[in-house]
């Protein structure tokens, strides 16, 4: 039985010049798990709002959800009872002062008797494994816990359909698994799930995937079919799961016969010495579809390949010498609550001039704090942080500190000026440079991030796309001409195409000699960009140095709720030397052919 049956769905936001949804068709059967993908602005979030009765369609030929007609006043209100919607940012969804109060919120709105509310809250707490956290305040929860609480809050009201709008975009891998597992369990209980996502490996287990472009459905079918269509994947700026990325290259070369979507499938597909190779003619059947497309289909998210339409002028080489950073025995406490909260303990760390270092660790491990200490924004409670062997009190420190660029997480949230040029010029102006120098620095920074001043300089920052805003914020830091860049989760909550574009920019900076300290959960990109890594957990450095893949490095990452690089896992499974696993996917394809 179809729970969602919409055809010709149209919606336009007030003041917008085009339709967010322009005649969308969607059918979802009871108990189905459907993934919805599409680039930013393709109408995914609008769809979530409409399905949840949070906005009313402007028009539709048919708009039936759980037996309610979305076009009528009563229908679009009543559907909220049956359809739960979980959004991306857990911080903006938790209403209650404690986990328990938050779970009760929806039930209180239904005006149920207190006894029934308490009973249902208890059930839901147990179901989502939140009993120990029931009295915890939301701002003290980890990202995964917050989102799990928000999900429990949505499902505390018994629902028939769950719509999730990029529920894991802001979480680390452990938090992501935590939330997806909770969703899986709810789905196993018979719930119909519509999962909107930018993460292609979340699409793989779906019964069906629906791809949107410009407010219309452009694909509806099994995930394997979508990913096998290289041209479509490229046109929609979708990425591929890592296994499929490498697999697509192998299919194009005729090494494997069909596109694998997971590591297991890739392993099964790869020819072993005992099994016969795929007949060339058979492979060729796939080649026409994939060969021309594969290179660019890889591009949006494959480390190392330039994204389509990405900027390609040479990057500004950092002027002067590189800058080295040193932490000696650094400890830091946040002054919060009754007692201080320890953020870092006895951290020893050296970043050589021009070196590229990945900072890995689960959320709350102290990565952001460490970056802020390295830039001198925070002062350590114990130990010392040196920039080029200089302490804060030494002469020449300030001049060097300026050359340590720190880009915060989601830095586009800090844009404030009314033109891109002005925003990027903010930093250089604070340095007291003359107008000509400021102008030059701004021009150069904008060019480096692929937003040339002649096209973007006069535009309002908020008129840019999410990915462009992220790069604009990066330009604001680059304009101060740093020699080392500290990046805090630069790829988080971007769509695959934007991630690819940012990757290109970083790669270019690195090629020009820029030092890099990259705090990220994206281990594949970190492995491709950085020659060393530091693993942080609970404020301590667990290990600093080379990746040590094939030599306990993978286990170490797993122990600290991180994932090993995909190629290292693949090399390990193939019985190859993981320490030789190529950082670039393209090289991996080469090595496997």
């Amino acid at each position, binding site marked *: 039985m179809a729970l969602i049956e919409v055809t010709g769905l149209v919606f336009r936001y007030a003041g917008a010049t085009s339709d967010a949804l322009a005649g969308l068709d969607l059918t979802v059967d009871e108990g189905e798990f459907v993934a919805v993908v599409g680039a930013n602005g393709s109408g995914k979030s609008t769809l979530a709002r409409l399905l949840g009765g*949070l906005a009313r369609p402007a028009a539709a030929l048919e708009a039936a959800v759980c037996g309610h007609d979305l076009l009528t006043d009563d229908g679009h209100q009543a559907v909220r009872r049956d359809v739960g*919607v979980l*959004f991306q940012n857990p911080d903006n969804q938790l209403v209650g002062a404690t986990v328990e109060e938050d779970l009760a*919120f929806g039930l209180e709105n239904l*005006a149920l008797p*207190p006894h029934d*509310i308490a009973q249902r809250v208890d059930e839901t707490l147990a179901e989502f494994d939140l009993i120990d956290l029931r009295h915890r305040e939301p701002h003290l929860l980890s990202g995964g816990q917050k989102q799990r609480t928000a999900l429990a809050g*949505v499902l505390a009201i018994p629902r028939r359909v769950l719509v999730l709008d990029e529920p894991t975009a802001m979480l680390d891998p452990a938090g992501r698994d935590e939330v997806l597992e909770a969703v899986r369990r709810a789905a196993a209980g018979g719930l119909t799930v519509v999962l909107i996502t930018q993460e292609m490996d979340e699409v793989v287990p779906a019964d069906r995937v629906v791809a949107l472009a410009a407010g219309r459905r452009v694909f509806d079918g099994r995930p394997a079919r979508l990913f096998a269509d290289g041209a479509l994947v490229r046109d929609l700026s979708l990425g591929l799961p890592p296994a499929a990325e490498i697999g697509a290259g192998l299919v194009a070369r005729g090494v494997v016969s069909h596109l694998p979507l997971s590591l297991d499938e890739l392993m099964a597909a790869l020819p072993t010495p005992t099994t016969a190779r795929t007949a060339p003619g058979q492979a060729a059947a796939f080649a026409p579809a994939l060969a021309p497309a594969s290179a660019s289909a890889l591009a949006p998210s494959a480390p190392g390949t330039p994204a389509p339409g990405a900027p390609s002028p040479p990057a500004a080489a950092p002027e002067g010498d590189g800058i080295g950073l040193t932490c000696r025995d650094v400890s830091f406490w946040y002054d919060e609550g009754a007692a201080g909260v320890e953020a870092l303990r006895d951290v020893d760390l050296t970043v050589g001039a021009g070196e590229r270092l990945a900072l890995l660790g689960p959320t709350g491990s102290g990565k952001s704090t460490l970056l802020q200490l390295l830039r001198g924004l925070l002062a350590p409670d114990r130990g010392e942080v040196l920039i080029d062997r200089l302490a804060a009190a030494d002469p020449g420190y300030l001049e060097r500190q300026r050359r340590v*660029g720190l880009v915060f997480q989601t830095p586009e949230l800090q844009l404030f000026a009314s033109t891109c040029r002005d925003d990027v010029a903010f930093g250089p102006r604070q340095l007291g440079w003359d107008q000509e120098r400021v102008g030059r620095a701004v021009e150069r920074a904008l060019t480096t991030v692929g937003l040339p001043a002649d096209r973007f300089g006069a535009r309002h920052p908020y008129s840019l796309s999410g990915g462009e805003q992220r790069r604009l914020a990066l330009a604001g830091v680059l304009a101060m001409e740093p020699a080392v860049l500290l990046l805090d989760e630069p790829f988080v909550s971007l769509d695959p195409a934007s991630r690819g574009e940012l990757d290109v920019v970083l790669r270019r900076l690195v090629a020009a000699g820029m030092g890099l300290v990259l705090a990220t959960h994206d281990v594949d990109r970190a492995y491709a960009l950085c020659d060393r890594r530091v693993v942080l957990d609970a404020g301590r450095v667990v290990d600093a140095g080379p990746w040590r893949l094939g030599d306990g490095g993978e286990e170490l990452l797993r122990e600290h709720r991180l994932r090993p690089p995909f190629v290292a896992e693949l090399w390990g499974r193939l019985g190859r030397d993981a320490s030789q696993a190529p950082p670039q996917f393209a090289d991996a394809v080469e090595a496997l052919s």
Partner: protein
Amino acid sequence: MRMAVAQYFPGDSLVHRFDPRAKVVVVIVLAVGLFLRSSFAALAVYAAVAVAGLALSGIPPRWVWRGVRPLVWLIVLTFVVQLLFAPGPSFFSLGPLHLSSHGLVVAGYLSLRLIVLVALSLLLTLTTPPIALTDALAWLGRPLRRLRVPTEELALMVTIALRFIPTLLQEVDTIMKAQQARGASFTHGGPLRRARALVPVLVPLFILSFRRADELALAMEARCFVPGAPRTRLHPLQAHTRDALLLVAAALAIAIAELV
């Protein structure tokens, strides 16, 4: 990052367990009593009540001090102003300054009264979760609904605002640090320059807050919230015998203060 207002101190003492409505009423009544009679003896009675309450609540003195600290200047100012400007024969003069023994007594009395008042209100805010406090105020404000004051909605608004204070403070901190990393300084220059330095903080903060308000409204509607519709509560307020006894005890304290 520290909250300027006194935070709730979780606990399970008798003081914590009183119905918040009873606690609000008692604190208001005691405060009125405190101002009704000006004598050191009466002050001593109220001070004893505050001290006994704090002792019963099991709140560490450090937390009480943290609540008092922001008000220390007000207390000192009260003392100094009263000391300098109270009328009466002076026992010490220096230029235009005259200190009188009467002034000393008045200044001492008024500052002590302020301290007791602060202690009584801390007793309420430290032992009552903000949500319970808003619920109590909403209940006590019920008669206002006759005048079409939407007390329930106001209480929910306050509750949600309280829930977001820590988040908002974290955000301000992040934005300020991010702009500092781009060379902004919030401590240098004259008042005008400092005010202008806040623009790169306030603009993102406003945009962020509006976006948050929008998303929060959606998330609330997605959980079947309808403004103005009747709601129930998971933990409805419940009065016990001990709350009646608390009210009697408060009345007794006032009676004693009036008699001594």
